[in-house]
């Protein structure tokens, strides 16, 4: 092989690597964007659910004990700027209470939350898998984008209890 041929092969290999990296970067960017959109959707669904629960709980058709219970957890979930762990806890609490107190018109919002929650965590899983690929780690393709975080919350049907009761 002449030096010129060797050079040509090297250029082609470098181009191929570059193309692959930029393709990965594009996919990564898309995955991050999707996580952001889905978080926005989940956030909105959660807020609407809490508001709907509050509204229904303040209506006349409900006993005051149920009303107080729902208002308490819904109000706690609606507090602005919670850190993610606290938000997860409070939204899970709201799910648990809503599973026990049937409220008119809230079921739809709960279903929307369930859907948005699944879609969000699915997007997070995709992005995390991409970020773990060796070439992404090696070339730091993720840049400064924050590590996407799954939103761990109880939705109706999978209610687990913390240990210890306060009576």
């Amino acid at each position: 092989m002449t030096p010129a041929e060797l050079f040509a092969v090297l250029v082609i290999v470098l181009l191929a690597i570059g193309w692959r990296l930029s393709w990965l970067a594009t996919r990564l960017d898309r995955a991050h964007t999707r996580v952001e959109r889905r978080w926005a959707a989940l956030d909105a669904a959660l807020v609407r659910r809490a508001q709907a629960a509050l509204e229904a709980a303040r209506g006349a058709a409900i006993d005051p004990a149920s009303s107080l219970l729902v208002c308490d957890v819904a109000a706690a979930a609606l507090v602005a700027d919670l850190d993610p762990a606290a938000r997860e806890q409070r939204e899970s609490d709201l799910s648990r209470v809503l599973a026990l107190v049937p409220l008119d018109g809230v079921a739809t919002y709960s279903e929307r939350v369930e859907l948005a929650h699944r879609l969000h965590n699915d997007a997070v899983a995709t992005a995390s898998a991409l970020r773990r690929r060796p070439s992404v780690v090696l070339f730091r393709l993720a840049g400064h984008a924050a590590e996407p975080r799954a939103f761990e919350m109880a939705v109706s049907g999978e209610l687990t209890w913390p240990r210890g009761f306060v009576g």
Partner: protein
Amino acid sequence: MRIGLVCPYSFDAPGGVQNHVLGLARQLARAGHQPHILAPGLFPELVEGRREAAGRVEFTSAGQAIAVPYNGSIARVNFGPLSATRVRRWLRAGDFDLVHIHEPITPSIALLALWAADVPVVATFHTATPRSRTMQLAGGALRASIEKIDAGIAVSESARRVVVHHLGRDAMVIPNGFDFAAFAPPPPEKWAQTTATRRVNLSPPPSFPRSRRPRVTFLGRVDEPRKGLDVLLRALPAIRAGLGDVDVVVAGQGSIPAPAGVRLLGAISDEDKAQLLRGSDVFVAPHRERESFGIVLLEAMAAGASVVASALPAFADLLRPADLLRTEGGSDPLGELVPIGDASALAEAVLATVRRPPPGRTARARERARRYDWSEVAPAITAVYHATLATTAPTRRVIAT
């Protein structure tokens, strides 16, 4: 008087509100009234098959409570149409002259009873109040219920402030009651006799005679951080360094690996508790939060143990009562108050109490505790009943069929 007493917490679990309701019911029965308790779960006397021990206190179960997240922790509560129906049926069957509801603003049968009651209502506020944000949002729906309270009672000055601030109502301050005689040492002539009979009947744990070693006692759930056992354990090395051999006794529910040099007794009976306190030099209460009253401090004071407690508002109310400091001129409190969670301050206070007990303090503490005996507290509560009945329009109730 036919009095309906509503307790939102189950008697299956120990608790200050439950003890208060039960003690009040017994005292009312002794005074010739007909108290009838509504509470979730089962009544202890029924569980243990000692129906007669309940005396003339009737009991109705409101069904099992359900564990739900409320107010930042897990609460066992009753709610929903089924519970509401049970409460209404109890009210109708009881045909009460008055209902006395404890912790009315909790998601429980207490609030349901307040909602459904058509007779005069007296309500006692112990500690539970909704978060202020909850109150803002649920306030409208709750206002009608809050208005139905004819007379409010708060168990302490701090509980009263919360009622005024959060609910916009006022309340009389009437403390929790307890059985002073059960904790105070028996008079000398009876002493030999009771110890003799006790020795025969006493089931394990055995009796707790005062030993030569100073005894430091802790009561309360051992696995609940808010009771603060860990603070005492952290203070132990310093206490041992100062006093040498110390008998440390810990009694309360829950299982933890036994800490070195500590006697873990597990849950004990009221009688054993009284005996344990009478044989204790120092009773420590390193609680962190949420003690509404602190009846256990009064029990220790009645039994003659020196008290070292964390500076919770409720404990400070008992150990540094404003009127005592004012009238008797002395600045000496009835026990030592230490900063919450401060192990070294706790150790120091225990050392000081054992080495140089302030003269006359235990006697003054015992006299103070006597004021919280049921014989003093129950008449104050019945006075509220009478004042309420005298000023409420008589309702002509149609008995539904």
